[in-house]
């Protein structure tokens, strides 16, 4: 009984909530037998389609891994890639994709009111799980953004190692910013600056048109520029791929050091053999390593401090801060020009002080977030330096497990691969 009363009360509250305006004109009493049409509602595609998407993703990941590791066929990978481009790209219009799902996951962590669809969780997790087992096969044949770039690789130019290392830092920054912006509820940076979504939808957000075309044209000469030097999801895949149980190999057998494959990778993802001995003075390398390790905490604090200084300008991307700033300008008489933002806010009747408090809350979150971002970047740069100090003996030409996209371009450069194919056809080379 009590519950019922509460329920009725609640409904009453909601009704009054949704009628902020007075009904100026009463509903007429029709005498001509006119029947009032009901509200017309059209619905999005049914949820079962979402499960179809997940199933397609799963199958594509499976096939991609199979084609790369077992079948070792660039042709199959290429066909799968075209399929994925058509399905996830042009048919599904590029949303939701694994790359963008990072933000939904981050937001779900920090905003209790946000609910994340299961499909998005699947899109975030499945490619990473596959990467933990088989390397970045997602990049090779499933990701539509990778596919569209892969198709325009015509004259890939080799970049120097140092340039690759430096440009390779950008995705970490992008990832950090994207998570910061998503977690604080400011915006979804990755989606906003997705250069290929316009192609998938045949319609451009006008400002993005030039950027999209530029990335695609750049892709003619620099193979998959977005994947290598921007993609934030690539960072996660890279981490998973380094630890992968199994990974694509250039040769199906043992490397014979023929160095035929050395130039085959357009992504500069083939590691070459190292000289036999540890070069220079071994002590120097050790000293450097110790120095770097000692510097690490200092750099973390410095990075955190420096980035936390940027938290206020970063927070300006948040709606609440944007509005609060404008309202304060108006209320303190610094401007007499109101904006749609301030007018809309005043229409809500929220006390200004509450807005300021909310803005302060957002800014304090940005402060913590940007501190962590700075510390994270410091860790990234320091680990890169440490990694470059560690000298591991390498005898063979082998894919860099982090950077390799498992595209299978290098297979055909290996004489051993040709041997394998011939054997498959039943031709024995021994004769």
């Amino acid at each position: 009984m009590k519950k019922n009363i509460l329920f009725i009360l609640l409904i009453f509250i909601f009704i009054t909530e949704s009628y902020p305006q007075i009904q100026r004109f009463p509903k007429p009493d029709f005498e001509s037998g006119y029947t009032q049409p009901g509200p017309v509602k059209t619905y999005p595609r049914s949820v079962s389609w979402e499960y179809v998407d997940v199933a397609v993703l799963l199958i594509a990941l499976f096939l991609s891994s199979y084609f790369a590791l077992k079948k070792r066929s660039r042709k199959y990978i290429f066909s799968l890639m075209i399929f994925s481009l058509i399905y996830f790209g042009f048919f599904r219009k590029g949303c939701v994709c694994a790359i963008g799902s990072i933000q939904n996951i981050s937001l779900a962590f920090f905003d209790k009111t946000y609910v994340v669809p299961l499909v998005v969780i699947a899109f975030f997790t499945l490619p990473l799980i596959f990467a933990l087992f088989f390397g970045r096969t997602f990049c090779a044949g499933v990701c539509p953004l990778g596919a569209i770039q892969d198709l325009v690789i015509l004259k890939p130019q080799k970049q120097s190692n140092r340039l690759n290392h430096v440009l390779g830092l950008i995705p970490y920054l992008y990832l950090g910013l994207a998570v910061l912006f998503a977690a604080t509820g400011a915006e979804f940076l990755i989606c906003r600056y997705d250069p290929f979504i316009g192609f998938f939808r045949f319609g451009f957000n006008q400002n993005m048109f030039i950027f999209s075309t530029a990335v695609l044209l750049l892709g003619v000469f620099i193979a998959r520029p977005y994947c290598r030097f921007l993609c934030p999801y690539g960072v996660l895949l890279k981490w998973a791929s380094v630890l992968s149980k199994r990974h694509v190999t250039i040769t199906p057998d043992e490397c014979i050091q023929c160095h035929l494959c050395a130039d085959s990778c357009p992504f500069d993802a083939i590691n070459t053999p190292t000289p036999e001995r540890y070069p220079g003075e071994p002590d120097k390398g050790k000293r450097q390593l110790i120095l770097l390790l000692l510097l690490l905490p200092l750099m973390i604090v410095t990075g955190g401090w420096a980035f936390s200084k940027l938290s206020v300008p970063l927070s300006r991307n948040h709606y609440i801060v944007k509005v609060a700033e404008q309202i304060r300008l108006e209320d303190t008489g610094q401007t007499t020009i109101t904006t749609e933002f301030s007018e809309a806010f005043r229409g809500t009747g929220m006390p200004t002080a509450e807005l300021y408090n909310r803005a302060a809350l957002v800014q304090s979150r940005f402060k913590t977030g940007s501190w962590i971002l700075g510390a994270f970047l410091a860790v990234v740069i320091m680990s890169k330096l440490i990694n470059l100090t560690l000298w591991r003996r390498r005898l063979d030409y082998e894919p860099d497990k982090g950077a390799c996209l498992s595209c299978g371009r290098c297979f055909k450069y290996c004489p051993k691969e040709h041997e394998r194919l011939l054997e498959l056809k039943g031709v024995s080379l021994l004769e």
Partner: protein
Amino acid sequence: MNNDKVNNKLAVYNMLKRTAVLAAIFSLLVCVFFILNYFQLKSNDPLNSPALTKLYADLDTNPNDDVLRQQIRSLDLLARKAYFTKQWQINFGGYILFAGIVVLFVCLKLMSELKQKTPELPQPVTDTWENRLLSQKWVMFSGIIVLSVTVALALLTQKEMSAASFERQQVKKYKVPDEKDILKNWPYFRGPYTIGYAAYSNVPQTWDGESGVNILWKTPVPKPGFNSPVFWDNKIFLSGADENTEEVYCFDDNSGQIIWQRQVTGIPGSPSERPDVTEDTGYAAPTMAVDGSYVYAVFATGNLVCFDVGGNKIWGKNLGVPDNHYGHSSSLIVDRGLLLIQYDHGNGASVMGLDAATGKTVWQVQRDMGITWSSPILVNTGKRMELILSANPFVVSYDPKTGNELWRVDCMGGEVASSPAYADGIVYAANENAILAAIQLGDTPEIIWEHEDDLPDASSPVATKEYLILSSGYGAVTCLDAKTGSVYWLHDFDNGFYSSPILVGENVYLMDLYGNMQIFKADKTFSLVNTAQLGEDVSTIPVFADKKIFIRGSDNLYCIGEK
């Protein structure tokens, strides 16, 4: 044979090359067309064409010009055609561009396949230590660059950014005040009871503005206003406005210093041009209301603003510029979290209750009344609270919680500026050029007696169980029997009254236009207790607080008390 094959290959290659070039040119053209189309749409949106807007404006002035109508029709049709053609072009263009690019890349890809030569044997490469050191250096440098750019940005924007940062501040939560607290203060136009009764009688009866006797302090008020002060917990609030600015002030009751002074800005819907008002009404005639948490002020522009008692702006809105040839002047009442506003103007009279904490409209009732300058009263009639409004031609009572009309009596007329009085179940409504009506409340409220002489124009009557006291604009003060309407006495003072009589204990305090406080007994016979002079013109009602009186003169705010 082999030669043929090579030739064939060459021919295919050349064909592909030609196709690629054509596709490239085609895509480029579509691209350019795209961009041009976009800019054209931006600069010249057919649906927002200025020519059409102008024609509409012309039609407003000449509604019967049929040629103009024809012109609009044809231009409108043209604009819509242009818009939908563009829409089609942009959508179709996307597909064409896509097709062009696909052809281009397919050709290029095939060409590169055909051209593929046997790759040269690459040089054996080794991962050298020098190479790594170089990479290390580059990474280090980029790290340093990122850090220094960050620090530089932080330093450069520091000043601006510290201004853009927000601190968590303590906001006083809105609290509905206790009845007790309301009576301790002077929250409304005509006191805590809204009907001209003071809660304190321990106030001075003598003072002199010229010699300073019993004048505790005197502070100039920055901007003019005919609104009366309101008082809550040692703070006096009033508003002031001129053609350009509207302001709210908070004074300290001990020192008389202005604690805070706020300009009213950033009100959505605030008119860019102020409405015309007359000199004796001004831009800030309505008296503010205060409820301990927030203070509320309304101005002739329809701007309604709410500050907390500390001066933080809480909310603001424009009620719609009132159509009022003197200037809006009805004062505010706030009751149990609802801000009650009488808003009878020429373009849609209404009365409304707003959520005091947020300014959201809780109820609003349209009224069939003429423009009114009087203020509502809020009284407990025994079984319920009633919000009573006197206007032309009705005196109407509303439920202050919901806005439901409780009763109405047709008795008023003219430009009603005098607010009703109430005592012992009888509502008294009066207005010059109309009538004084005593309305006995009950199941069907009815007029029990009427009176026609020396009626008030701006000032409002005060009633007790036995007496009703009226003060006219030309100085006549009448005391009537509250139950029968027979005149006990009539006294002609030298000066007229805009202020209203306030019952302070057994005495009535009545301020005339030139700052002379006439203090007389509320009794069957006239007996003047004292006349205290302020030495400054006064049109407002004083505040009677504990041992103190606050009076807003034409230029200054005075505090009167025993020294």
